[in-house]
């Protein structure tokens, strides 16, 4: 007979089996994955990825995302420039999609992750009104959609590839893809268990 506190039950992030929190090194009894074993630096890994992603997001907005080359004349457009251009041309839905995918979602994700990472250490989110688990679930759900703009650039570059008129990917696409990649890694490295432990006391 084992007696345990209900709060000591944790969920394996890989197979979702319920495990007992034994302290230092937890290995899932079903799939043998380790469940966030870094006890000393639990948020640092996530922070590191997040900061990398935020740094990469700066050149992603400054450099051109898409370069149109017409009869030797090259013209680049940044993410925001592309959105404004689309808006002016009257394709509002597409402008909205690109705006949400490449500007709103990344910034929203940065802010939610910063909030979560701070709130599990310092009394910032003591109010129980916000369900932080739901917030985290939301970031995981919307995160990958910021890849839309990169795919669009890749598709246009693949389609329009002629001697006179060419569309090329710009420097920003590399920065943007790295930013999305590291944001996803940061969300994966975040230990959801910390939310529960902090709310407990």
């Amino acid at each position: 007979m084992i007696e345990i506190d209900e709060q000591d039950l944790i969920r394996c992030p890989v197979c979702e089996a319920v495990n007992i929190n034994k302290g230092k090194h937890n290995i899932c009894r079903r799939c043998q994955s380790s469940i966030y074993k870094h006890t000393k630096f639990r948020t640092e890994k996530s922070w590191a990825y997040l900061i990398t992603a935020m740094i990469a997001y700066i050149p992603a907005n400054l450099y051109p995302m898409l370069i149109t080359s017409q009869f030797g004349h090259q013209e680049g457009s940044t993410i925001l420039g592309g959105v404004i251009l689309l808006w002016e041309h009257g394709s509002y839905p597409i402008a909205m999609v690109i705006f949400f995918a490449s500007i709103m979602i990344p910034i929203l994700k940065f802010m939610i992750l910063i909030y979560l990472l701070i709130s599990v250490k310092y009394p910032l989110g003591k109010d129980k009104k916000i369900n932080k688990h739901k917030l985290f679930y939301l970031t995981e759900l919307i995160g990958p959609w910021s890849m839309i703009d990169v795919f669009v650039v890749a598709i246009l570059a693949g389609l329009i590839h002629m001697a006179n008129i060419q569309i090329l990917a710009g420097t920003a696409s590399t920065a943007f893809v790295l930013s999305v990649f590291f944001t996803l890694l940061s969300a994966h490295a975040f230990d959801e268990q910390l939310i529960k432990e902090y709310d407990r006391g």
Partner: protein
Amino acid sequence: MKLKNEEELDDLIICKKCFTLHKKVPIKSGTKALCSKCDAVLYKYNKDLPKKGLALSITALIFLLLANRFPIVSIDILGHEQYLTITKTFLTLFESGFFIVGFIVMFLIFIFPFLITILYIMIFLLLYFKIGDKLSKKILVLISHIEPWSMSEIFLVSILVALVKLIGYAQIHMGISFGALIAYVLVDIYIGSSMKLPEIWMYRDKVFDDRNR
């Protein structure tokens, strides 16, 4: 809370969305259990899971092969005909020197979708024939690591966005692969929502527990 042994933890489940602890109750085949707090689906039970899974994942593989074989779209621009295939999307990036973007795009829309579909076929085959106690574990762990990185559905939306941008400049013809890609994405979403990984784990536990007893 008292438990006889660790095995009894199998009767518990923590909601994916809101982290509330629940005790599992046996449900009929074809029904689902919901979270008492946030109404998210906790688990479903289907006694024909491997059969259904095999049928769907083989369908997905066929559509995925078709989607990669033929052009997705072709456009007519100033008298030149240009076409696009999934592989051409990242090969062009390689050609123009964008190796990082090309590499990541290649994994997200080409390698991972294929890998996931093949792994699904393997896991359902193992469960159908009730073999591979250890191997099935490894496959399920691998699937859960790769799944968030398979982005075919996002690629599909991107194609639509790119085409809307081209309206007015070029004449657009949809290829066979465009239909196949839509079909693949729909089947893939259906597999992901009707047979979630924890449910496959539950089924797997049941199969091998019954056999070992």
